[in-house]
């Protein structure tokens, strides 16, 4: 009886020695960028600049107006149709106002003078990188006796998707 018990114990020791293992590992970095569904950024404001009293109308062309025109950039999924609307109201110096009618152009590249005129409600399609660019100008209609001062207003661009 005593001899049998010793035999089993020897077998277990031998089995553990046989299971020695070696491990190598390789790690892959997992990288993913998540963009917001849509991003619309104002890159530049609209500047009419100086007007001498007595001038009754001033226009900034969104296509040819250079840095006077406001600039927006849209980031979205590629090749996605979206609807563009814009609104503009009045410019005010705090007590007096000037009527302001906005104008918008847009295009799939950042080249302003290759952009096309857009009207509020137009549908555009983002480029293959998901980008689209807008420029805003417009017409300010002044009274011949418009009081001297600095007038400020807003141009609001909305993208619906």
């Amino acid at each position, binding site marked *: 009886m005593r001899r049998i018990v010793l035999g089993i114990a020897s077998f277990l020791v031998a089995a553990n020695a046989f299971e020695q293992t070696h491990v190598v590992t390789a790690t892959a970095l997992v990288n993913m960028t998540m963009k917001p*569904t*849509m*991003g*619309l*950024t*104002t890159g*530049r*404001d*609209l*500047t*009419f*600049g*100086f*007007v*001498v*009293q*007595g001038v009754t109308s*001033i226009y900034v062309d969104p296509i040819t107006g250079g840095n006077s025109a*406001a*600039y*927006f950039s*849209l980031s979205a*999924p590629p090749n996605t149709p979206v609807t563009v609307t814009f609104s*503009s109201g009045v*410019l005010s110096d705090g007590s007096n106002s*000037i009527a*302001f009618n906005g104008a918008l152009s847009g295009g799939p590249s950042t080249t302003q003078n290759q952009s096309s005129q857009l009207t509020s409600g137009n549908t555009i399609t983002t480029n293959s990188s998901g980008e689209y660019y807008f420029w*805003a100008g*417009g017409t*300010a209609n*002044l009274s011949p006796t*418009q*009081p*001297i*001062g*600095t*007038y*400020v*207003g*807003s*141009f*609001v*661009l*909305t*993208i*619906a*998707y």
Partner: protein
Amino acid sequence: MKKLIAIVALVTGLATGNAFAAGTVTATATVDLTILSAFSVNIVTSTISLGTIYQGTTTASVDPINGGASAAAFSLDGPNSTPVTFSWPSSITLSNGTDNGTFAANVTGNIANTQTSSTSLTNGGPAVNTAGSGTTVYYFWVGGTATVPAAASAGAYTGSVTVTVTY
């Protein structure tokens, strides 16, 4: 069978990833416009006084910087810190009614009313900025050089030169 279910689940996942929720994004640009009062010119000294030369002398000059009251002097009232451009004819005719000469103007300017520290303006630009404060925002002086033929007859030669300020 287990494998088939796994593939269907993968396709469903990709379709969900391409879709995006409807909505709107907006961006606002500030619109800025400044209305200025119009400029006006004040005449300080309206005549460029070339003085007297003797027959046979062909040139006479007034330096707008150092010519003192012999130079014509003007000032501008108007908006502050505004670019303005000066232009004038490159040459005008001086005449005594019989013979003609020419006069080429030189114009200098300064935001301060100090003629001797005025600087030469270039005909047609570049623009200079008016003073940052005050009602009278720029000063300019006009001199130049007259040229007459050696055989020009004696007499009083006159002409006029118009300096245009564009803003």
